[in-house]
């Protein structure tokens, strides 16, 4: 047993505040306001992925216009380009991309293991060959955290040892979990170092403050599909008292009911007063069920990646707008959607559903400025069919809609939780998503929700 003893553990400051607003009386769903260094966000929350500091041709204000106040950057990519030295010189990722709201970064480890075939994991860290020149490199927990300090993200993730949940090697799984706990301690140690920017006018705080005063480190629960291992990991990691907790290692090829059991087990063990982030989940059905299981935050590249192939995510399911059936469909992508793409041309922006978040940066632009209006564009399925895969603008607008759809789905879920009608919301969602055909409902979702006494199939 190599775990750090509690006696050597330092206490961890938090740069966020989790305010629980409401709880579903039937499921484990919760609604909260999460106050982060760059403004509040509301949970349940979907976070789009702006891998290299941008999202598929969208400007920061287009993302703001659909209510986004927290998105992801990938540490692996930003570490390679523009690189740590440039990030330090510029003053971090917020400044690089002129994003005045929150950023979450991953540790970079998962990207390496999944993108680079030759990455190997040892106790020191993740060893890999540089994609630039093939020289051997090493990503340690300390280096990952240091990179995320240079990025300056509001939520940073520990380096963890990720292996596929479907791996049959129980011993390797246990090793990965134990190692992730040890690496968490190394990450904490690095994160509690004195932040040289603390006390400066730009970053605030007091000289001598650690990075933990302005960036929130989240631990990542590992343990594959083994519920005992997950329990052990939850207990150990909860002791480290990080400001937030992620459930990792999922989103792979595991069966959906196994996935649900893991999330359900973890959320039951985790402290109530902290946000819970399930990594790599973003398919609408998965989102609404995971919320019922007590998860708060999600990220996924699916909705934005699929836009490029002409797939529109709508309340009535995923539509492939490249299909000839949409060539002369002159209706909005999703007539229920309130995003600029779907609203009639020049119609004014309606108030956002999430009322506590900061106003968009363009709202305070001086009079006469050519500032963003957020007015409607009146785009039809036929026009996207005409553009998609031929003009980049087609990808821009479809990405914007898809992000808007997921953010708005989360807002609607939140309102349902606050009004304590989340079970009805779930029924309504599945009914529309499958076009009213209950025979198409996935068994895992029906079974999981039945566990809470919510019967999707009843009328």
């Amino acid at each position, binding site marked *: 047993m190599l775990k750090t003893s509690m006696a050597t553990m330092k206490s961890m400051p938090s740069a966020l505040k989790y305010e629980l607003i409401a709880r579903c009386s039937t499921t484990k769903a919760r609604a909260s306001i999460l106050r982060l260094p760059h403004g509040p966000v509301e949970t349940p929350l979907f976070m789009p992925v702006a891998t290299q500091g941008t999202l598929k041709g969208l400007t920061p204000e287009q993302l703001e216009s659909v209510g986004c106040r927290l998105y992801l950057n990938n540490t692996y990519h930003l570490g390679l380009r523009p690189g740590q030295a440039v990030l330090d010189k510029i003053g971090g990722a917020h400044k690089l991309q002129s994003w005045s709201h929150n950023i979450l970064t991953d540790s970079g480890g998962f990207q390496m293991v999944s993108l680079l075939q030759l990455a190997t994991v040892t106790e020191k860290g993740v060893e890999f060959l540089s994609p630039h020149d093939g020289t051997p490199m090493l990503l340690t927990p300390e280096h990952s955290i240091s990179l995320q300090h240079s990025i300056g993200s509001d939520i940073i993730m520990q380096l963890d040892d990720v292996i596929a949940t479907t791996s049959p090697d129980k011993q390797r799984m246990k090793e990965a979990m134990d190692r992730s706990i040890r690496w968490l301690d190394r990450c904490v140690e690095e994160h509690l170092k004195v932040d040289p920017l603390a006390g400066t006018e730009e970053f605030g705080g007091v000289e001598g403050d650690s990075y933990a005063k302005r960036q929130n480190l989240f631990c990542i629960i590992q343990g594959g599909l083994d519920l005992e291992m997950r329990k052990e990991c939850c207990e150990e990691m909860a002791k480290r008292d990080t400001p937030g907790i992620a459930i990792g290692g999922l989103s792979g090829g595991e069966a959906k009911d196994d996935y649900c059991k893991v999330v359900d087990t973890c959320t039951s063990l985790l402290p109530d007063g902290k946000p819970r982030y399930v990594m790599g989940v973003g398919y609408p059905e998965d989102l609404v069920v995971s919320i019922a299981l007590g998860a708060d935050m999600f990220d996924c590249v699916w909705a934005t990646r699929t836009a490029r192939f002409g797939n529109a995510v709508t309340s009535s399911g995923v539509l492939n707008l490249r299909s000839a059936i949409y060539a002369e469909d002159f209706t909005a992508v999703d007539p229920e959607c309130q995003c600029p793409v779907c609203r009639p041309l020049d119609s004014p922006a309606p108030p956002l559903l999430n009322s506590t978040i900061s106003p968009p940066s363009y709202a305070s632009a001086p009079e006469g400025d050519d500032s*963003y209006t957020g007015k409607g564009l009146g785009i*039809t399925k036929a026009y996207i069919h*005409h*553009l998609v895969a*031929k003009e980049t603008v087609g990808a821009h607008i479809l990405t914007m809609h898809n992000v808007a759809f997921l953010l708005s789905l989360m807002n609607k879920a939140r309102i349902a939780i606050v009004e304590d009608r989340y079970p009805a919301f779930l029924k309504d969602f599945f009914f529309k998503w499958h076009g009213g055909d209950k025979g198409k409902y996935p068994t895992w979702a029906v079974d999981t929700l039945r566990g809470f006494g919510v019967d999707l199939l009843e009328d």
Partner: protein
Amino acid sequence: MAAAANSGMVFDLRTARRTGGSASGGGDDSARVGRFAATGGVVSFDTPNFIAHASRGAVPHLSGDNLRDHTDVGAVYVALEDFVEKWHPNVPVYNHPSTLRDFISHPSNSLLILAPRRSPPVTTAASNTDASIAILTSVGFRVLKVDDYFNAVSSLKPDIAISPPDLPHQTPGKNRGPKMVFRTELWLGELIKRNTSNVPIFAPILPLDIEQQSYYLDHLKEHISSLTGLALYDARLAVELPEELEGLPRLSLDDALTPLKVLQQVSWGVDMFNLVFLTQMTDAGISLEFQFPGEATTKDGKKKALGVDLWNKEYGTSLEPLAAGCKCYACRKHHRAYVQHLLTAKEMTAWVLLQIHNSNIVSNFFIAIRESITQGTFEKDCKTFAEVYKEEFPEKTGHGPRYHFPSLP
């Protein structure tokens, strides 16, 4: 002096200083300022000015919100060949219940100009016939019946329609020239006759000697009440046009590939430009920096660059705007380091920001040209510009955007 066609657009020529006597005696003083406006008064377009070339109805890189909110693009050129992959009647844009403007959700603050082909057009395998134009669609070479174009003008109701010119691939020989004139006149007559929606029409002026099309020009004089403007495929002809046609705005489709060439065409009396270099520079990662007439800051005789190549590593940590003093969205909110990062990462946002910025530089260039003409300093200012700036844009060094996504896996 206002030329009103029996349609919805009026061109009001504010200055006309054609004092040079004989038309061919050099057109340096033919620059003119005007305003082109919808009779309803909703959209107006001051000239000289540029129009942006759309691809499939979209100005490259600019979704409608960015085009509407962040640029002063007052007119957009759309080619019907971008919309007719399938055979009539299976063409979605024809079956749309409303107009082309609705089909492409075009912002209400900008004019829509329809033409059969893109400009410059891609050379086709086939030739035109008396009844058809050879075109290139996204699925290959096709033929567009002029009849279909005439019907499209009436049903799609653009703000301006350019009557089809008969343009051969090569310099026309002895027999081809007269045939060009014949077909162009025939097609214009037909379009005027069948223009049931009263769409403002621009008549083409062919890239032939003025003498070779003199009968056609007589025809234009006769039908001037049916015309709203002229589309010049050789801008030099602006100085040789008959006086009777002077009140019509002139759109140049004779690509002015540098600002200096724009100034030259302005001096010939061109009013509107299809500005090809705008998207070319954006795609090259070059941020435009020129102003009119510009100020010489160095005495070392070195001319200023027309733009900066943001691929250049020296901008990798530059928090400066894309161009000093520019007030566009991209310059107010972003910096060179970000654009470079996006370019090297091949992220589409790079070209979005560049296109917003470059179109702003070009808009300001034309505002300054109009002021200069109004104040009577245009000729002098052109000389200054030629002294301050290099003639050519910087060499392209980086890779352009990927327009075509990989097909479905």
